[in-house]
């Protein structure tokens, strides 16, 4: 436990000094290595081994896929379809925002990428409808939380690798929670639109909606392809990522004729850099997770929890608090890799399904993306809306409460996660 405290204190101090997260983790691990005398060769070996994983290859594919979609005109067509279909609803741009994020989630897997993509397109539209810039920013940031929940999801891939759980089962388990959050956010924005008496944009003929649907059909079929691949066991998660990249290229270049090949090398470099940023943390976290396991910390925690007689409900409450706080101050990748090995054995001991546990963990960590003071999604959408940060934070509080209410439901009703994988019979 002294080792864990040393790791945490050094890491926290360095991170607050604005040292890169990977460097803070690496240096805190070095301190432990020197004080506790672990062989340094293990440090190098565990970092490389942490990265050397076939399922983790899916991460650059999902990032690249989102970039290709945005530049191939796929995202704009889907937004156009939603906007036409919902034109008769008051303040429809809010619901279009949720629908777009559900769709983007179905192909990108990253909340930050979704916040940037949907924010640039939809915050101006929401402002045109009469929403304040601050509300539009806060709402888009919260809607983008769907990115890592609805498959494919980078945090779920990382959790699956760490917890040794079927990633496809995690993906299927994430659909219902994702749609519950989407429905809750859509209901909330409808109430706001009604209260502010925002106007409807007007009718679009069914013929026009049908035409826009045909134009977007190729794009809309991407999440279907993903679900079929996941359910049917046609591809591994990594292969699915590669197939989606080729599919997005095909739709953007051949069908929509908007994809520009001259920009492709820059897209590849950008996706590789984003992946390197995540995977460097994955590698160093793997070594810290190794230190934690070798020093018997999960066993000690399990003993403490047993002595405290928490019970499964009390344990899940504790998990929510720990991961929520971790999500506010930490990037989701190190939080998953370091904390999951500590809490997962206890969760299994309480009879909690690792798939259910994984979804609760990831959702908690994602709330950190919209939770002040750091909330990366809020920073991105606030920059797009140019609204004062204090107003954006104020507008985000009720939205965070909505997401937390859904989180409580998912925590205490495991069927919300486990129902779909069980009826589809995923191994």
């Amino acid at each position, binding site marked *: 436990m002294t080792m864990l405290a040393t790791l945490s204190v050094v890491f926290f101090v360095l991170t607050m000094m*604005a040292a890169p997260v990977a460097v803070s983790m690496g240096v805190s691990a070095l301190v432990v290595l020197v004080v506790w005398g672990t062989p340094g060769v293990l440090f*190098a070996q565990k970092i490389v081994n942490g990265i050397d994983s076939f399922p983790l290859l899916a991460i650059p594919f999902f990032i690249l896929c989102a970039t290709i979609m945005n530049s191939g005109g796929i995202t704009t067509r889907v937004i156009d379809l939603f906007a036409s279909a919902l034109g008769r609803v008051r303040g429809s741009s809010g619901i279009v925002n949720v629908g777009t994020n559900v769709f983007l989630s179905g192909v990108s897997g990253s909340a930050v990428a979704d916040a940037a993509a949907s924010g640039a397109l939809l915050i101006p539209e929401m402002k045109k409808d009469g929403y304040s810039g601050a509300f539009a920013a806060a709402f888009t940031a919260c809607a983008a939380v769907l990115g890592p929940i609805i498959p494919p999801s980078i945090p779920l891939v990382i959790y699956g690798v760490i917890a040794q759980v079927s990633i496809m089962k995690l993906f299927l388990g994430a659909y219902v929670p994702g749609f519950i959050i989407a429905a809750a956010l859509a209901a909330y924005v409808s109430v706001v639109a009604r209260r502010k008496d925002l106007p409807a944009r007007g009718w679009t003929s069914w013929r026009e909606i049908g035409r826009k649907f045909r134009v977007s059909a190729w794009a809309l079929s991407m999440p279907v392809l993903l679900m079929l691949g996941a359910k049917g066991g046609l591809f591994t998660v990594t*292969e699915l990522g590669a*197939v989606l990249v080729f599919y997005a290229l095909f739709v953007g270049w051949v069908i929509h004729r908007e994809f520009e090949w001259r920009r492709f090398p*820059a897209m590849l*470099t950008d996706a*590789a850099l984003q992946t390197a*940023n995540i995977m460097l943390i994955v590698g160093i976290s793997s070594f810290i997770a190794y230190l934690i396991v070798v020093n018997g910390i999960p066993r000690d925690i399990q003993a403490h929890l047993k002595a405290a007689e928490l019970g499964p409900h009390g344990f899940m409450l504790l998990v929510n608090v720990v991961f929520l706080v971790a999500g506010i101050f930490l990037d989701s990748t190190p939080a998953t890799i370091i904390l999951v090995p500590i809490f997962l054995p206890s969760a299994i001991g309480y009879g909690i399904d690792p798939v259910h546990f994984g979804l609760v963990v990831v959702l908690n960590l994602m709330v950190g993306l919209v939770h002040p003071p750091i909330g990366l999604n809020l920073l991105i959408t606030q920059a797009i809306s140019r609204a004062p940060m204090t107003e954006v934070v104020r507008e985000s509080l009720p939205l965070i409460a909505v997401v937390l209410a859904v989180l409580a439901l998912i925590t205490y009703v495991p069927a919300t996660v486990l129902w779909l994988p069980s009826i589809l019979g995923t191994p």
Partner: protein
Amino acid sequence: MINVVRRVGETLRAILRQSLAALLAMIIVLVFAQVIARYFTHIATHHLAEISRLLMIWMVFSGAALLVANRDLIVIDVVHQALSGRARRLLTVANDFLTVVLLVFLGIHTWQLIEIASGKIAPASGLSYVWFYLPPILFCVLGTYFIFEKLVTFREDATPQTETDATIVPEEQHS
């Protein structure tokens, strides 16, 4: 001297950018080839999976070196933003120093690992494990060079050229 250091740095960054694009493109093609092989040509592709993983390791460490060069590693900069320009620069130098310490330590121990693993062969592709452990060395060498470059060029970059420039604080990128 400063110009030479800067020019070498720019060349290395350009090479890294091109390499990253090429590595990711190769990984995508290799993984897609596995799907084709499974459903159409029915050829075993364990070696392709292993090579994809190897390329990923090279991509991650080459990318990490470029991220160090661009100061683009993930940072939580809430406190940093509240500091004055001078304190911020001092903190940046301190963080660069910490990064070098980490890189040197990682480099030394990876080298020891290479010596241990030099006789071992990867099971599917038959490649030496040295290829798997070389990328961290590349990261350490290039990362240290880029930080050295920043320190060498720091004074010149910070020296105001005109009266207008005197008010500009060197920009740092944080994600």
